[in-house]
């Protein structure tokens, strides 16, 4: 953790560094996400998704949620993407580019997405009002240390224990369900 925390224990002037990283990583994420939904090579789509997920993990760390960031890497990139790749393989996806991955008429989808972006953008700007100069909405991560694993696990096993158990049951159900659905007769 020290290597990662290193960036955060600097003086106030280097808050600039966090912004720079944020924007860099955000840009990479957005481009990768766009490529996920537009590329015509399905395996590349999965790999771009990896980039996005990694970017998300980095953002978590920037926000001081280190445990979640690491879990993100482990679970998402480590397990979910592998699942996807297995799925792609088992459904005999073509190697290389193929067409027919998009609908013929993507206009409604674009329209909906644009509409959504506008609505959400409005909501966000309305919420923030004067987004770039209101200091109360500014985080100064130096004020507090990143949350530790103990804090998170204490919380899970005390306040949110019921949810935790429920999640376990859910995972079990998903496991059994997937097996039942996918087994060969």
């Amino acid at each position: 953790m020290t290597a990662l925390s290193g960036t955060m224990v600097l003086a106030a002037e280097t808050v600039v560094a966090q912004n720079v990283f944020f924007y860099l990583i955000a840009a990479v994420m957005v481009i990768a996400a766009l490529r996920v939904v537009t590329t015509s090579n399905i395996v590349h789509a999965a790999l771009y998704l990896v980039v996005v997920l990694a970017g998300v993990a980095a953002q978590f760390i920037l926000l001081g949620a280190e445990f979640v960031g690491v879990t993100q890497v482990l679970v998402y990139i480590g397990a979910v993407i592998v699942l996807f790749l297995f799925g792609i393989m088992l459904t005999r996806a073509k190697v290389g580019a193929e067409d027919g991955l998009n609908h013929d008429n993507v206009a409604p989808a674009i329209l909906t997405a644009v509409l959504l972006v506008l609505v959400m953008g409005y909501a966000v700007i309305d919420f923030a009002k004067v987004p770039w100069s209101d200091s109360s909405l500014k985080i100064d991560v130096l004020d507090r240390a990143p949350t530790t694993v103990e804090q998170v696990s204490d919380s899970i096993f005390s306040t949110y224990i019921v949810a935790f158990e429920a999640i376990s049951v859910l995972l079990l159900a998903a496991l059994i369900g997937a097996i039942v659905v996918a087994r060969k007769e």
Partner: protein
Amino acid sequence: MNTTYLAVEAGDLAVEASGFFLENVWIIPAIMAVSFAIILGAGKRMPKGGSEIGIAAVGVCFILALLTAGQWVGQVNAAEACTPETCDYVKYGTDEDGEPGYVANKSVGADHSDDHSEEGDHSDEDDDHSDEGAFPVDAGAGSSDGESASGFTAFVDAEEGSTAAAPIAVISERTWWSNGGIDFTVGTMVDGLTVTLLVVVTLVSLLVHIYSTDYVAGDRRFTHYFGFLSLFTAAMLFFVTSANVLQMIVGWELVGVCSFALIGHWWEEQPNSDAALKAFLTNRVGDMGLLIGMIILFFASNEKWGIVDINAAAINGSTSHTLLLIASLCLLAAVMSKSGQFFLHTWLPDAMAGPTPVSALIHAATMVVAGVYLIARMYGVFFNGLSIAGSSINALAVIGAVTTLVGASLAFVQDDIKKVLAYSTISQLGYMTLALGVGAWTAAVFHLTTHALFKACLFLGAGSVSHAVHSFDMKKDMGGMREFMPTTYKTFLIGSIALAGLPPLAGFWSKDEILAGTGGWGFWEGESHANGAYTVMLVMGMITAAMTAAYMTRVMYLTFFGEFRGGHHDDHGHAAADAHDDHAHHGDPHESGPRILWPLRILAGLAVVAGLMNLPKGFLGLPSGITLRFEHFVEPLSATGYFPKISHADPSWSLAIFSTLVVAFAVGVAYYYYFVRVNAQSPSATELINGPTARNKLLKAGHTMLKNRYYLDHIYDSGEPVGAAGATAMGVIFGSAAGLTLGFSLDNGLDQNFWPSAIWGLVLGLTVFTIVTAALRTGVGIATATKRPLANAANWVHENIIDATVDEVGKNSVKTADALYKYIDQGVIDGSVNAAGRGSQGAGGELRRWSTGQVQQYATVMFAGATLLAGLLIIVI
């Protein structure tokens, strides 16, 4: 002829009017409504099938209308002779409680400048003497262009302090329902316009009633027909005498329903019921505009339903201009559908499937002028909303001008004589709308009157001819009718000349007044007396006049000249054309009976003399007591508070001569083509074999487009495949036109920039066009599936329940109960259940296209909807 008016303002004052007939004019529609009820109830058992009740009722109403008109004329004359001692002057202002209404005008007689301190009565009260220095200005009665207001003209210098006044409309009302501060009243409003329409409607209705006794004699639903004629007349009279816009809406819808019933009189034949449905649905599309417009006006005028109040609020500026503009455009949509203006006119030619007297009454003289009447009645709203006084083109004028051209062009390629007249009606309605759009109010109303007369004459003449040959197809079944039907020929000729606008018949005067009213003529001659440089409108009007003359010449030739081409068909050419199911076939066609001919003669006679009602100012040096009589009695003075101050164009000899020459030239060209060339080819030929359209590709393409009626029906009717290119083209044209119009209107009226408004107009126009097309296609699609079983069930109910019940009750009550059980339970309930099933099948077919099974499509729709809702929540709330 003098080209300037020596402007005299007759005091610009108003007084109240009264009179027994004026206050009790509700009797007139009531009589017709009662007649409807009696005919439907008891008509079948009467010796003449109920027609005698109808004729008697209409006759009484006509006499009452004449008496009412006489009283109104008396009131106008009395008001003109008013002095402060004898009359109580009134004006529209606010009373002690701050409520707007008519209050006493105490500032009369002393100093005229006081008259214009009325609260915002005259929006242009300050610019009286500032412009138009060419005109000697008179007693400071704020005339905007130095012109006289209606009627009170003289060729002597003005008298200072003239106390002559004009009567305000007679309104008699009672409260219908009062709820939480809003009073719903019902009442009548009678002024010059009302009285004009009363006379016209009752007169034409009376003549049509008499005509119909011969035309539909022996018809399967004779009584039903007369019942609906009575209902229609009642509805139209109710509409015309309305005092508030709610009543106008009711009357409007009711005449639409009657039109539906009468067009579909022979509904057993599919084309007839289709035509009736098309008429009704197209009108419905426009009625949305009516409702929206009226509601906007209600809220914008401080929650008032009264016509006088709404107009006054519009005129004195207490209604915001934007709202007036929007309301005017909405009402314009309604007018477009009811009065057959371009792009919602498609129902009118198809409506010719109804019996000819119905066409004459409804689709020439009365119902289609309901739209024009609406504009004329609410002229304060339109005048201020569309900035008609300004120099920029407005939507009303544009639509009117386009309609005249479209109607006239389509009339050239019709083979069916009634369709020619239908398109001609569309074209003439365009004239009326055009006149209203350029500010020539009296010209429009006068044209309405004269048009009713000569168009009814033409329609009834066409009916008389078809009565003889049992068909409406000019090319196949007519020709040379002049020898067989001399009287019909003569009256038709007179009607045609009147329509074409050759002096001294009625059409000439009214059409010329419209052309002069556009003001475009003076623009050329260097006079600046225009309502705006509407030169384009003038040109379009002139072209249409030429076309009108030409196609009427064509009709005359094909019908009455040449050799008789018919008589070889043993079928009834149009099954719908022949009302005589049991008519024996004659060898040669023969002249019709007196009940058909006398209405024709009367109408033709009126078409000759009606023009003299509104001779232009200074015509042949006649004194002012004889000229402009129509305008004097009909056009309200702006002092009444509910009519805007409009300017009147100068009459112009040069324009009159020029337009006559144009018309004569057109007649000459058509005469040459038909009477000389076609006749030379063969006496029984109907067109040149090697004529221009055969030789020239461009002309042929134009001809094809006309034959297909500009492809509008292909777009509207879901039964035919949509030409995507055509629909797009129409949409773009319409959108662009709307854009330009809105751009000009807002530019002129609200001082907005042209381009943003134009783009808004384009978007709005495209949206409206899409919505209208979608509505028409869906409506026709759904209705097509349901109407046949419903129509059958409805007719069944009428014949076997209503009539059977009446008879049985008279005979034996036990048997009646038995019959009721059998018919209602078995017939109605089962029949309606089946009809509902067929209806949902039809609707399901349309809706099936939405369930494709594509989950992502469902998801898209869901997402989009959720986003919109979220957006609404966030942004609006």
